[in-house]
């Protein structure tokens, strides 16, 4: 469950951007569309609590993000928010499996080995658990990033241009996986994109 009301953001240069209100029930997949420079990424960062809005508020799972201090917000994010970026980033010194384990740990949860292995298997990464992320292909990396985003069964998954670096086949595969996994954990999935390949698949859309 994710909602925002009256959100606006003031850039360091003084430019003010207003964003449309958003209400996404649990389990919904929604696209956030807009041209480059329309503030899509900024809105995603506001929704994920990575930036502070000038006005308005974001509520995730009943919690107003404005009411959380810095450290509380970090912790809340670890437990309730999963994030996927255009390029997948990992802790480079840790194996894929250890990356998933530390995601559980940083969120304050116990390490759940069967879940990690099951998830890797599901995402067709069964043999890659002990590999360093840098050794994976781009498609594999993006799948591993999906695994990490959903490992803690978050309330909301934010994906920032998750398919822009992928070819058609990988795009279809990644979106299907994302949707399936989001449904499995009953998470709201919000995808920020300007990728036309997605607009045909996902009907719920918000334009900036």
């Amino acid at each position, binding site marked *: 469950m994710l909602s925002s009301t009256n959100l606006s953001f003031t850039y360091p240069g003084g430019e003010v951007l207003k964003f449309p209100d958003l209400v996404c029930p649990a389990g919904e997949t929604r696209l956030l569309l807009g041209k480059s420079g329309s503030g899509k*990424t900024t809105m995603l*960062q506001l929704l*994920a609590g*990575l*930036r502070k809005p000038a006005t308005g508020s974001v509520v995730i799972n009943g919690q107003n993000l404005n009411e959380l201090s*810095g*450290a509380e917000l*970090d*912790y*809340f*994010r*670890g*437990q309730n*928010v999963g*994030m996927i*970026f*255009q*390029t997948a*980033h*990992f*802790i*480079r*010194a*840790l194996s894929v499996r*250890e990356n998933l*384990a*530390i*995601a559980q*740990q*940083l*969120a*304050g949860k116990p*390490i759940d080995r069967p879940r990690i292995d099951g998830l890797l298997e599901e995402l067709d990464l069964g043999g890659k658990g002990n590999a360093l992320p840098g050794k994976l292909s781009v498609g594999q990396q993006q799948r591993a990033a999906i695994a*990490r985003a959903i490992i803690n069964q978050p309330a909301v998954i934010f994906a*920032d241009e998750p398919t822009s670096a992928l070819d058609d086949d990988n795009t279809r595969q990644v979106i299907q996986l994302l949707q399936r996994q989001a449904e499995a954990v009953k998470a709201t999935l919000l995808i920020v994109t300007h990728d036309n390949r997605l607009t045909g698949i996902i009907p719920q859309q918000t334009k900036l």
Partner: protein
Amino acid sequence: MNLLRLSWKNLTFKPLNALLSVLLFALSIGLISLLLSLREQADEQFDNNLAGIDLVVGAKGSPLELTLNSMYHVGYATGNIKLGQVKAFFNPKHPIVEDVVPLSVGDSYRGYRIVGTIPKILDWYGAELAEGGLWQHDFEVVVGEEVARVNGLTLGSKFKSNHGIIDEGDENNIEHDDDFTVVGILAPSGTVMDQLVLTTNQTYWHSHETHNGDDADHENHDHAGHDHTHDHAPTPLTEEDPEQEITSLLVRYRNASSFQALNFPRNLNENTELLAANPAYEISEVRRQFDSGQRILGILVLAITVVSALSIFIALFTSLRERRYELALMRTMGAGRKKLFFLIVMEGLMVAVIGYVLGILLSHAIMALLAANVQDDFRYTVSATRFLTEEVWLFAAALFIGFLAAVIPAVQAARTDIADTLTHS
């Protein structure tokens, strides 16, 4: 997967960078520990061997040489002095001199020096017999703990001396004919006594007499006397022929701070054929030389320490630039700023701890090597297994340097702005 392990994995992700940082750190810790240990042990040996001696009297020459030769048994004697010249010092009513110990030096046994003297020297140096008795007669010797241990000497062992100061294994040595007999072995005292062979002053006269004419008679007479006077104390030096020679005299004053005592060495040096050296002054000169050498080494060590701290700093700083995404990522996964700070600081501290352990091992390994080489040349005992309290402080300093080198990168890591970092990907 706790943070400590993550720090470790990050550190070893670039093993060569980590190795360089650790080695530099080990080098700097090792050198500091080495300098501290050598200095501590040198000071201790200087102090142990001062033995309350206020003055050394010998033949004209270099006062430093006289001091080193008579008190530390290093180097060569300035010459000999006649008993007659110093008879007054033995007078128990002497206004300045409270007590004296005469020394005769010049011969050796397998690199260990043979010193003709009187048993009072043991009291002065605080040395005690471990077994056997004191040397009473000529050619009886009491050997230091090290001398006995290294050469396998036991009570009743006999050996011949070498003329001059000769190291073991030298083929061109001249052996004296007479056998020395070990009558006592000293307990270890941590002083130069551990490394000496002690006998009577008179023994030197016998072993250096030519075997002809009057001297032969003299010798026979003495040997006869020797046989018959087993239970008697040997002749005091004051009753010997004033023409006989000894090497030097160790002197204790009645009152070292009295006006007369302060002027005593200058009076001797100006008005007699004797050389009087103040050991405290001479040793402080040696220390001054030592200190200036140490200061230069100290600057070198400081430079290495700065470079090693810089190397940790630079390694962390560059790896941080490469890792800023993963730090931002950790924030999105729920890691607070404190955790990121801790993560980076731990990397610096790990380098410091490993470097410290390696450095201490290094310095003590070097000391073990030194111990083997330095001992014979300088009568300077180095112990590799002694650890100083300073080395505990050094550990604290190591942690501090590790922290200092890591703190700026760590603060930067903690300040990572998630949004900015991840947007500019």
